[in-house]
């Protein structure tokens, strides 16, 4: 479903991704780990078309379409969702209005009629329950004054609302308390089908206890330098990254 070939990407003239390769099939869960500054969030930005980053080489295809040709909103409406590492606040825009706009844009893209008010409210209620999201939060402006954990929960709520084919969770676990982590992770698992795929970016094994990955990749210096199964995450938790860095840098 997703095929990233030899991607190179810059920000402000500095090369961050240096020939990254990744293939994701429907039904799979991929974990991406790696030291701070390795380029994990950059990968998420490049996949979703953040204009701050410039792709200088390589290709990204999703459902057989060339993503680099599409605008960020087109990619989103093709079914790529990013749970942001740092969700922004949008004062004055209510969650309800925001979500309804997003859903209707997606429906328009797929040549469907706008959602009816009752269907929308039912959907909101159902998905709020899934991530045990407080009504008080959905009555406010997007992320405005939300705590760090509330913002992360709100990301997964939006993911549930939009039902993407590919979800990228960028450190969704950071900032969540122990109970919230379980609730949010269970939410993600409930949304999992054999048609959709998930890329989980995380620093901690803890999240992977709940969301069990089929593959674990180590991203280091702009490339995926090691791939294994879920046991690789355990090994990293124990040993850190030094041994991998040595392996790579020693090459």
């Amino acid at each position, binding site marked *: 479903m997703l095929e990233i070939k030899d991607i190179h990407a810059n920000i402000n003239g500095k090369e961050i991704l240096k020939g990254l390769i990744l293939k994701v099939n429907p039904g799979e869960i991929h974990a991406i780990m790696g030291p701070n500054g390795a380029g994990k969030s950059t990968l998420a930005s490049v996949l979703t078309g953040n204009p*701050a980053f410039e792709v200088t080489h390589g290709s990204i295809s999703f459902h057989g379409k060339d993503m680099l040709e599409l605008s960020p*909103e087109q990619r989103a409406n093709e079914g790529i969702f990013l749970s*942001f590492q740092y969700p922004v606040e*949008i*004062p004055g825009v209510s969650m309800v209005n925001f979500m309804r706009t997003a859903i209707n844009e997606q429906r328009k893209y797929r040549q469907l009629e706008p959602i009816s008010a009752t269907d929308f409210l039912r959907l909101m209620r159902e998905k709020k329950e899934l991530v045990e999201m407080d009504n008080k939060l959905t009555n406010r402006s997007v992320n405005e004054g939300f705590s760090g954990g509330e913002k992360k929960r709100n990301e997964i709520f939006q993911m549930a609302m939009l039902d993407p084919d590919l979800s990228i969770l960028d450190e969704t676990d950071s900032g969540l308390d122990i109970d919230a982590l379980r609730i949010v992770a269970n939410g993600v698992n409930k949304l999992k089908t054999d048609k959709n795929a998930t890329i989980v970016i995380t620093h901690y094994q803890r999240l992977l206890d709940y969301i069990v990955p089929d593959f674990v990749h180590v991203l280091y210096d702009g490339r995926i330098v090691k791939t294994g199964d879920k046991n690789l995450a355990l090994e990293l938790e124990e040993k850190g990254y030094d041994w991998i860095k040595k392996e790579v840098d020693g090459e």
Partner: protein
Amino acid sequence: MAEDILHEVTQTDYKYGFTTDIETDIIPVGLNEDVVRLISAKKKEPEWMLEYRLKAYRHWTTMKMPEWAHLKIPEIDYQSISYYAAPRKNAPKSLDEVDPELLNTFNKLGIPLEEQMALSGIAVDAVMDSVSVKTTFKETLAEKGIIFCSFSEAVEHHPDLIQKYMSSVVPVTDNFFAALNSAVFSDGSFVYIPKGVRCPMELSTYFRINAVNTGQFERTLIVADEDSYVSYLEGCTAPTRDENQLHAAIVEIVVHKNAEVKYSTVQNWYPGDKDGRGGVYNFVTKRGICKGENSKLSWTQVETGSAITWKYPSCILQGDNSSAEFYSVAVTNHHQQADTGTKMIHLGKNTRSHILSKGISAGLSNNSYRGLVRVNPKADNARNFSQCDSLLLGDKCGAHTFPYMEVNNETAIVEHEATTSKISEDQIFYCNQRGISTEDAVGLIVNGYAKEVLNKLPMEFAVEAQKLLQITLEGSVG
């Protein structure tokens, strides 16, 4: 791309003439006493009206254009302007003959079909005839003794009221543009609500078709007698292209004891192209007086058009316990300049005023709030609260706030708050990632920001104004 559409649309000339009975020649350009006499004669005005115009004209010749606003105003040659617009010939006969791009914008704004016809310049009579609501409307108003007519008709049929109230709020000598308007005003509207009458409908909907008509020197007078109420709506959300570059209108409002007037405007005159060529200069004097006790005046404005806006809808709070509100959204894009705000003059005891100004600047534009709150020595317990917010799109535009306070009574409480915020690229990208285009994202954010003011507008107008904000800012981010 979207910008091009708007550009296209605003390039289209669809101004139409005044009324059918002044099917006439054109007065040559320039301004002198003879031209003033000619205007008055063409309008078949009584002697006192001519005298009024001449007095205004003579005073105007002694005045200079004000220079204190935060505006760069190109030299205006007042002798190269024609002060009497000729009716338009070869108007389209049906919507089929109208530029489809223009119709597209009308549809985007959700403007009803009859109004689209009028705005496109299709023969006015035909349009009016198709608006069946017109007659019932007039009958209802007449039953209640409400006078609502063109200014010219009022001069003819209600000279006593006009002579009593005209210039009672904005004197002929008030300022350069007010004097000019008083000398050459073309037409406008007159409203009188008798004692104890609550006007049963918004003075709006069909009537705003007429508003497009009133030309460059428009004059409005609204009088609300004791215990009466009226909500008045002026302007139009449709992009109005006008070859008249200079607009200098006057609006006067008199609110008597226990009466209330709500005045709402949406101003969308041609703002010039994106390189700053052309566009209307809008120098307006709007002022109301809360004359009697417990009277109430509320101004709501949505300003999106014009190349230059100079406009300060104000209120004199004379009656004890009277109150006034000013709610404003002013949007500037490209090279537009706006210097707008209000004056609240507290004279009576326990008078209250509330100012809420929301400025939005994009492109290379400049947007200033200028507001005066004055509390006179006798205005015991006067209260004012002012909130002035600025929203910036991009980093090449300017937002400025000039609050003036003159408080001469120590029991007064005058408060001022100001904020400045910016739409960030991160916010836009966040919306994009949820499938929302940049234009829609800007629309969402801007409408959220302006919500409190838009909510003050009559319902059907609020919806159009919302869309208008978004259209005005198309192409300003990303």
